[in-house]
């Protein structure tokens, strides 16, 4: 192609683009009557399954709870963004989100590495963010007025597991593994620290990014024969790991964090993972609210909820409650007002009663230790509750 052709191609492009101008101006044309709720999570790439759970949970909640807002004359819409689990994409999306004045709340992200720089952007315009999944302490420890989370913190969930392992299971020796992510390593380290405080010996502590072949990790583990194996991570790594360990003849008890709370856990692990314990902030799926959520989710999307879908649902419900408060009498909502209204919401749903403290953590998180009771994925909701604990988030460190 010679330069002349480049020029003519460009000219054609320009003509086309100008002809299409009215299309592109679509997003602005809507104006006052619409309130948008955005999600940011990875919708493509290896973590897409979890990211989509966030989007679908939000979608379900919007459809369920938008009634009151629509009565006051607002249209409520979902705008899903794909952050590709990449911080630079997340930040650029965030800039796009704050430029769309109709967006009042962001539900996201999946990765703390994306959430932290993106929330710096939301803060510029006091846009509220409620995170369903970011357990990194620094997400809320920065003390921003617009950043909240409905999930627990690593330094809360870890100790819950440790309490259960040392107290209820009477573990003497434990072997701890994690997936080298913010979440997995964070919760595994917190677990290990608390466990050692309680006098349990941690005879192995390993991280791995491996997703398929766990043989080389299991061999030394099996030789050391611990009472308990803890895997800090998500079910798509945890379940194959536990499965391969059991098949290789490891007889220890298994424990994991809320990343294991998915029916896919038994779909992958089958019989080998029956009896595994996991800690979770979501109430047992046997509770009426959670059961209903599971049924509705399945009905709408044809599959069982992913780990953070319930949290996203709750986060959206809280956001809508705050929006109802702010728009009382048909007033158009302001971002800062929405953000401060979210802090005042008292919500009680399937992840227990949620009220935010002054840095956006849930004031008191109820934790449940559950035990997998069957290898039938359809009966994931019938898992047994082994223990219940309520722990407050630590106060802000000055």
């Amino acid at each position: 192609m010679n330069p002349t052709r480049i020029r003519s191609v460009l000219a054609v492009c320009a003509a086309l683009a100008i002809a299409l101008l009215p299309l592109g101006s679509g997003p602005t044309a809507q104006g006052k009557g619409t309130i948008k709720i955005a999600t940011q999570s990875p919708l493509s790439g290896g973590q897409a399954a979890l990211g989509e759970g966030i989007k679908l949970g939000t979608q379900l909640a919007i459809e369920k709870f938008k009634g009151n807002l629509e009565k006051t004359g607002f249209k409520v819409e979902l705008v899903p963004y794909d952050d590709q689990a990449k911080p630079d994409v997340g930040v650029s999306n965030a800039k796009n989100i704050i430029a769309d004045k109709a967006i009042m709340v962001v539900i996201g992200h999946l990765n703390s590495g994306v959430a932290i720089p993106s929330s710096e952007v939301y803060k510029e315009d006091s846009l509220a963010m409620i995170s369903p999944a970011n357990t990194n302490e620094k997400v809320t420890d920065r003390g921003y007025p617009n950043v909240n989370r409905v999930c627990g913190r690593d330094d809360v969930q870890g100790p819950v597991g440790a309490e259960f392992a040392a107290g209820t299971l009477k573990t003497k020796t434990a072997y701890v593994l994690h997936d080298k992510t913010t979440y997995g390593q964070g919760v595994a380290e917190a677990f290990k620290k608390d466990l050692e405080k309680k006098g349990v010996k941690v005879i192995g502590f390993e991280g791995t990014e491996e997703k398929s072949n766990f043989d080389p990790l299991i061999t030394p583990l099996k030789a050391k024969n611990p009472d308990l194996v803890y895997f800090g991570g998500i079910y798509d790594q945890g379940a194959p790991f536990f499965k391969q360990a059991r098949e290789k003849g490891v007889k220890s008890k298994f424990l994991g964090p809320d990343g294991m709370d998915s029916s896919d856990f038994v779909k992958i692990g089958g019989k080998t993972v029956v009896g595994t314990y996991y800690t979770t902030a979501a109430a047992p799926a046997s509770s009426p609210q959670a059961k209903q959520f599971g049924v509705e989710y399945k009905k709408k999307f044809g599959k069982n909820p992913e780990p953070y879908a319930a949290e996203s649902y709750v986060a959206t419900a809280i956001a809508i409650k705050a929006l109802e408060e702010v728009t009382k009498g048909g007033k158009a909502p302001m971002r800062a007002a929405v953000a401060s209204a979210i802090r005042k919401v008292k919500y009680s749903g399937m992840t227990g009663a949620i009220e935010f403290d002054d840095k956006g953590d849930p004031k008191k998180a109820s934790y449940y230790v559950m035990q997998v009771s069957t290898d039938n994925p359809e009966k994931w909701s019938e898992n047994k509750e082994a223990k219940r604990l309520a722990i407050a988030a630590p106060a802000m460190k000055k």
Partner: protein
Amino acid sequence: MIPSAAAVAFVALSTAAVALFPRSILVFLVFQTSLLYAYVARIPGWLRAALLAAALLVLMPAIGAYNGYYLEVATQVGIFVALALGLNIVVGLAGLLDLGYVAFFAVGAYSWAIFGSPHANVLFGGGGFPLPSWWFYPFLVIGLAVAAGTGVVLGLPVLRLRGDYLAIVTLGFGEVIRVLANNLDKPINVTNGPRGITPISRPPLPVEVSYAVGFYFLVLLIVVVVILVNRRLEDSHIGRAWEAMREDQLAAQAMGVPLVRAKLLAFAAGASFAGVMGVVFSAKQVFINPESFTFLESIGVLAMVILGGMGSIPGAIIGATVVTVLNLQVLKGLSLWLNELKNAGVTILGYNLAGLPTQLEPAKYERMIFGLILVFMMIFRPQGIFPARRRQRELGER
């Protein structure tokens, strides 16, 4: 005369259009196209320079005041332009296939992240950190030097390797740097592992402007310097040595090109640009963790260089711009627009989009379209968008 008038009118009209429709992504694309047109149009040199300068120095920040998202896109384009120009030296000029380029970016980013944040206190003890924020500017040079040093360190062992053996070693090197960043939170906490480092200080700006504008100008300045350095390098003694080496290593050696020095210089020069941009990136993001420095990022930058036209400076610039704009703007805009249509319940060919199953959510398939575009670009324009003049002649002879 006519092209000059057309170019001025094009830029002016598209600017006016952006002012009229500040949210329309398509209009902004037209503005970007007008700049490209101004660059390729047959107009006097002074007019071209004046148009581009006016657009980049005045119009772009003004547009950014309307919509911060565009400024973010422009800033990220700048960052990737510098990266692509750096890699262009290694791959395009010297012909050394580097699949781990992002490692140098990481080295630069971490050098400022560690010292520009309280994290250095953990590493060195005491409370002297973060360094005062003006240290950012010296760190641009330090980051450059550290990255260049890393480039030499990588270059030394691979001097004897050629072609794909070199590619695999650089790939391995890139992974080693990322995994090191992910793991070096023990035994000595250098990088804080997956949890990343935050808050990273931002530089003091000489003039009272927002950080978004400040970073835009900073990146622009660095890009201009990088382009100047690149042009000087290309025509210099060493630049011709690189090209000779690329075409035929043996012949180059026979003609007295010092291979060792030329190769090491290529790695060091390429790496240094990435190092500088790494420092800027870490300050811009406030938070970094290893997720920003994956193998896919290296591949992305390589795609930019080849898409634009290997060994060509305008090619690397346009390649970086096209890929970044596609990823952050066009594909996002497309999926947002489709989402708008879906929410509005538009009917296409008798099918109501509101009933679209979630499996077909447009936001999920941005990467698929990107892949397809890469394939088509290569098939229909294998020499790149703006091929290097020398290469163009070669291909013409075939």
